[in-house]
């Protein structure tokens, strides 16, 4: 982690370090740019987005570079979160309680670690789609580099790129809704870094218990 205190005197708990917040927002901003320019190329009805962002040519030039920034931040996320995102046998019980989670009956949902199984799906969905988007995107980036006898690569990229992007858009809609609208306190956590004890206890009980144990051991 960093030199930021894990538990503040007023009882607030560090959920995301500066390092984690920084990487999250680099990924977020690059993704939103990719999403907007990508949607412009997806449908003629949305091409005005490219015009608003400086024109079709500039959008086409910058989209791949934003893609590289996004992939780079995804690699950094993998380095800092992959271990905590690992699927656990206990996740099965959480998935069985999905309907309670959806209905906001959180008292009937098994306690979660630092990341709940839904967040893990988000992470791995973005990670694997990111790899597909990178590989297909590289082929689409350099149209004059693919010789005619490797034309099938371009034809595959043409379908893989939007299909993988659509999967991330599905994840993105749910992620933004939950992080910024549904779950009070979650947006503050990824901006300021801290959550209340009650928030940690409610949403990530196993993680909270470990933090409290660690804090009292240090005393």
């Amino acid at each position, binding site marked *: 982690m960093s030199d930021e205190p894990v538990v503040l005197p007023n009882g607030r708990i560090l959920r995301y370090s500066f390092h984690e917040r920084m990487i999250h927002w680099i990924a977020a901003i690059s993704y939103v740019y990719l999403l907007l320019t990508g949607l412009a190329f997806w449908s003629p009805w949305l091409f005005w987005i490219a015009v608003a962002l400086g024109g079709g040519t500039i959008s086409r030039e910058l989209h791949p570079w934003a893609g590289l920034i996004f992939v780079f931040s995804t690699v950094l996320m993998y380095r800092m979160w992959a271990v905590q995102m690992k699927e656990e046998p206990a996740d099965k019980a959480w998935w069985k309680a999905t309907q309670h989670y*959806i209905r906001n009956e959180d008292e009937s949902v098994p306690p979660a670690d630092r990341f709940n199984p839904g967040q893990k799906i988000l992470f791995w969905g973005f990670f694997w789609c990111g790899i597909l988007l990178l590989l297909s995107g590289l082929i689409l980036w350099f149209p004059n580099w693919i010789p005619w006898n490797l034309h099938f690569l371009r034809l595959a990229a043409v379908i893989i790129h939007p299909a993988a992007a659509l999967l991330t858009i599905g994840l993105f809609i749910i992620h933004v809704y939950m992080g910024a609208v549904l779950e009070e306190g979650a947006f503050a956590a990824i901006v300021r870094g801290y959550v209340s004890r009650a928030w940690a206890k409610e949403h990530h009980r196993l993680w909270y218990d470990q933090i409290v144990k660690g804090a009292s051991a240090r005393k």
Partner: protein
Amino acid sequence: MSGASLEIRAISGHAGSVPGAGLKREFEVCKLIDTTTCIGCKACEVACLEWNGYSFSETVFNNSYQTMPETSWNYWNLIKFNEHEDKDHGMMLLMRKDQCMHCEDPGCLEACPADGAIVQYVNGIVDFQQEHCIGCGYCMSGCPFNIPKFSPEARKVFKCTLCVDRVTAGLEPACIKSCPTGCLHFGTKPEMKELAEKRAKQLRTQSGFSDAGVYDPSGVAGTHVIYVLHDAKNPELYGGLPANPSIPWTVKLWKHPLKWLGNLAMVGGLVGVAIHYLRFGPKVVKEDEENPEEGGKR
């Protein structure tokens, strides 16, 4: 190139209908290339460069009379030379003038996301408008003939225009004008088709080419450049002319089912989360009863 006075039939990446559709009637034009009377003189290659204002560029000769392996962004007209050992006719040097085929169902236009970068005129000419091209190269994925070429300098894509500027002014394309043997013809599609069939019949009945025929592939709904071939059953012999060209299935899958599925899923997702919020509201953390001063959301 711009054919401003021509009636437009289709526009790439365009939301809504084609403005002014159906105002005028125009002939469908067609270029006929009789490969059986081509002598490979390359006059058409030079005429194309001259008319379109391109200078000669560096090339690769590959143990052949062919000027370069493929057409390039500034070399739109290329005669492909192919040696072929025929059991009835011995050694044949098959020469086919390669250029944009001006498909009736153009894959380049289908794949293009940029509004107005590719237009198809009612006369059948498919024309790139470089001022609207964003340089994505998707047209290169949509084309079954390997024709659109990306210019690294201009960062845009170029190809044969069927001399739309000349045709608009009532002139024949530059390649047609330069042809010394008369193997190139230009006229309306029905006229050219009739002439081509007549020539193919002559080849079959009088010259011993029993497989002679006309190349006007139905997979792209026909083309506005058609060939007479000695062996219409094996068009691949003529420098890789595809036997059954069509818009690639991945491009079709992307532009039709995936597009509608994706639009439905995206709108459905947004509506779904909105309904969820209205029905279940926010996840509010209950006050911590043990430490009320510490707990809760601030």
